Structure formats: structure tokens, C-alpha cells
């Protein structure tokens, strides 16, 4: 479970203080698939950065499984992210010199896993996202959807407690976006907690819960009784 208490983030803009996040309180239970939606500038990504410890400059507290993680020093945050959190960026954020499998294996190697088991686990993660035939491809030789799948494999490889995804489908067409959503749904069925940022309502409807943000505040928080998990069926996802 991840809990945010009284999260406020203020930045200077043109000499004036601008509240990007305004007293956010939020709890996401284990196994939940939550979508955060809102217009551009609503504070969605900023909230995700705060929750995932990528941003340290904020007021308030973040707890994961009742452990306060928001006050950890920088090196401990990095360590905590490595061991407990997975993050997927909109721009994939793969290392261009490394092959798909090497990108995925990197966090394993950093956890102290030997080279063989690290690469074996990376291969398994790539199989999970359907990229078993492109493990040795460099990111530049993969399509946008494939690169995002590598990024997902890297994020889930370490079996994180929470998977954060910052508009992972924003650069993809509908078919590829659905492929990514199918992967998320499958992971969630396996118990993975996922917090997804999106501004595509259709995709948000596939999750259990939709949180809407506007001007740095949560303006609505709805549980979805029947997530539209078959929304992508029309694209015949294999």
C-alpha cells in the first residue's frame, strides 16, 4: 500500500509561488490498478514523481507499507527505488548503447545478481512482454511500442511493489497503446500494484480506479465497478 499525506509542491514561476500540488492525500491499496487523469499541467506527473521518490522537493509524507520513505536521503532513495519501485517513462528512457536484454538486466546486476541469473531473469521479463525474439536488439532498431515494452520489462523485472507509469502510451498509436495496456492488465491480474498516468479516458476505463486531477488538486476519485478490460479486443491483441 502506498499512502501520500498532505503533499504540496510549490515552485517559483516568474517571481511568484506556484502550487503545482495542493495538499494531496491519497492511498493506493496493494493490487490496485489506478489511473490518474487530468489535463496537461494538472500535476499528474509531478504527483507520480513525488510518489516514486524521483522528486524530493515537496512538503508532506509518503509511506509504502507503513514505512515512511519520503525522508530518505538521496542514496537511500535510489536504493529503495532499485529494490521496491518500478518506473516507466513516456519517452521509454532506455540506454541506447545497451541491447534490450542488457537494459533489462541492468537493475538485476545492480542488485548484486550474477551475470547469468541477471540475464536469465531479464530474458524472462522480456518474454512476459512478448519480446523474446528481440532480446539482442538495440533500442534504435525497435519500434516505439517495442521500446516501451522493453522499458516495462525493465520496470517489472525486479518484481517491484508498485509500478509507476507516466503516460506510457502517449507516443504510441492505438494498437500499440492497447498492447501496452494488455501487459499492464496481465501484470495487475498477477497482483501487481500499478499507478498509471494517462490523459486517454478509454485507457483509464480499463483500470479499477480513476483519480482526476486539476490545478494540483484531486477533484474526483472513482472506483470502477466493471473495468472495461476488453476495450482493446477490437485490435485483436495476440
Amino acid at each position, binding site marked *: 500500500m502506498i499512502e501520500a499525506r498532505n503533499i504540496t509542491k510549490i515552485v517559483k514561476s516568474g517571481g511568484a509561488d506556484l502550487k503545482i500540488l495542493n495538499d494531496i492525500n491519497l492511498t493506493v491499496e496493494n493490487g490496485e490498478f489506478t489511473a490518474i487523469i487530468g489535463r496537461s499541467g494538472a500535476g499528474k506527473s509531478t504527483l507520480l*514523481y513525488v510518489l516514486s521518490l*524521483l*522528486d*524530493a*522537493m515537496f512538503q508532506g509524507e509518503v509511506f509504502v507499507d507503513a514505512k515512511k520513505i519520503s525522508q530518505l536521503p*538521496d*542514496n537511500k532513495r*535510489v*536504493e529503495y*527505488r*532499485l*529494490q521496491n*519501485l518500478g*518506473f516507466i*517513462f513516456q519517452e521509454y*528512457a*532506455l*540506454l*541506447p548503447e545497451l541491447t534490450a536484454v542488457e537494459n533489462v538486466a*541492468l*537493475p538485476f546486476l*545492480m542488485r548484486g545478481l550474477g551475470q547469468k541469473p541477471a540475464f536469465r531473469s531479464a530474458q524472462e521479463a522480456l518474454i512476459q512482454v512478448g519480446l523474446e525474439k528481440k532480446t539482442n536488439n538495440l533500442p534504435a532498431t525497435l519500434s516505439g511500442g517495442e521500446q516501451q515494452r522493453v522499458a516495462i520489462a*525493465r*520496470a517489472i523485472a525486479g518484481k517491484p511493489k508498485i509500478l509507476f507509469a507516466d503516460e506510457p502510451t502517449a507516443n504510441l498509436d492505438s494498437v500499440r497503446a492497447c498492447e501496452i495496456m494488455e501487459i499492464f492488465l496481465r501484470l495487475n491480474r498477477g497482483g501487481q500494484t500499478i499507478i498509471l498516468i494517462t490523459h486517454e479516458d478509454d485507457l483509464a476505463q480499463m483500470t479499477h480506479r480513476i483519480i482526476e486531477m486539476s490545478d494540483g488538486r484531486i477533484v474526483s476519485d472513482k472506483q470502477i465497478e466493471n473495468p472495461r478490460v476488453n476495450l482493446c479486443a477490437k485490435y485483436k491483441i495476440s
Partner: protein
Amino acid sequence: MCVPKTQFVDLTVKGIVKSKVGEVNRRIYIDRNYFMQLYGRSSNNPNEIAIRIKSGVQPQTIKRLLQSVAGEGALVQTARESQGSFLKDIETTFSLLGGIIGGIAIMVSSITIFIVIFINALTRKKYIGILKAIGIKNSVIATSYLAQALFYSIAGIIIGLSLLYGLIKPYFDANPINFPFSDGILAVTAQGIVLRVTILIVATVAAGILPILLIVSKNTLNLILGRE
């Protein structure tokens, strides 16, 4: 040649010593036995003895030994002490110049390494941010850049030593620089090389670690998003 008892003898000149040291040029070198025969001497009572020591033996050790045997009245000097201040001053000047040039070289190489690593890290800020975001520790990132700096440095040392021992030193040994007072060769000592290599490695570590620490210490998000 005029010898005692107004006796004239003919001597065959077997060679002329051509040295840039006047003291050496002004002297005549003659076979010891023949000299003693000409002067009618049978005992050794020279006023100056030159001693050639084996390589590795410290001249000061021999000097102390001889001084203790010959007594305080005898003037015992090492070759270097006997050269006078002129050569010593020249040697000091060249050592100073060598030190200054070496210092400048170390400074230039350190600045070069700093710039190379800094530019490299700066252009890869986003990827450093990604590495941090996926949980790679700052120390691991810094170590990888430090290894890169050390690679450049060690490659430079290997190339430099190869050029020195394979080309430059043999060249100057064969073609010494023609100074008015002496022939100039490169005085390369193992001790000097070890000292300079050590200084260069230390300078590399400092010049390599500083720029990467400046980058990795930045906020992860700012690195990824290219802010600042």
C-alpha cells in the same frame, strides 16, 4: 716532453681527448708504468686519485670510508662535488625546467581529463538521470566515469612511456644535444617515472571524479527532464 735531468723523449700521440670540460682537455694522459719509468719513481705517491665505483654503489658511502682511512686532512670528494658550482647550477636549472614542464604537462592533462569527463557527463545527463531513476547508485555511476578517466590516463602513460623508451631516449642517446659545456641527454630514472606516473594517476582521479560528482549529485528528475 721535458722530463727531469733535462732528458728529451719522443712520445707518440695516440689520441686527443676532446671534452667540453676544460679541466679534462688541459690534461695529458700517459701510461702509468711508462710515466714512473721516465720520472724514475718506484713508489706510489700521487697527489690525486680517481676511483671508479661500480654501478649501484653510493658515492657518499665510499667517500665516508675513504675519509675515515685518509684522515680529516685529506680532501675526499665525490665526482659531483668536484665539478664545481657551474655544473651544479646548470643541473639545478635543467631540473627546475624539467619540473616546470612536467608540472604544466600534469596540469594540462588534468584539465583535459576534467573537460572530457565533464562534457561526456553533461551530454549524457539524461541517461545518468535514467540510471539513477532505475536505482543505480551514484557511486556506481561515478565509478564508471572514473574508470573511463583512468583508462584515458593509463593509455596516455603507456603511449608516453613507449615513445620515451622506444624513440625519444634512444634518439637523444645517439644524438645528444650539443651544449657548449656538455652533451645533453635525457636523464630518465625509474624513480622519476614512478613519481610522475603516480602524480598523473592522482591528478586523473581528482580531475575525473569531480565533474561526475557535480552531475550525479543533481536531482534525478532534473537530469532526466533536462532542467537546470
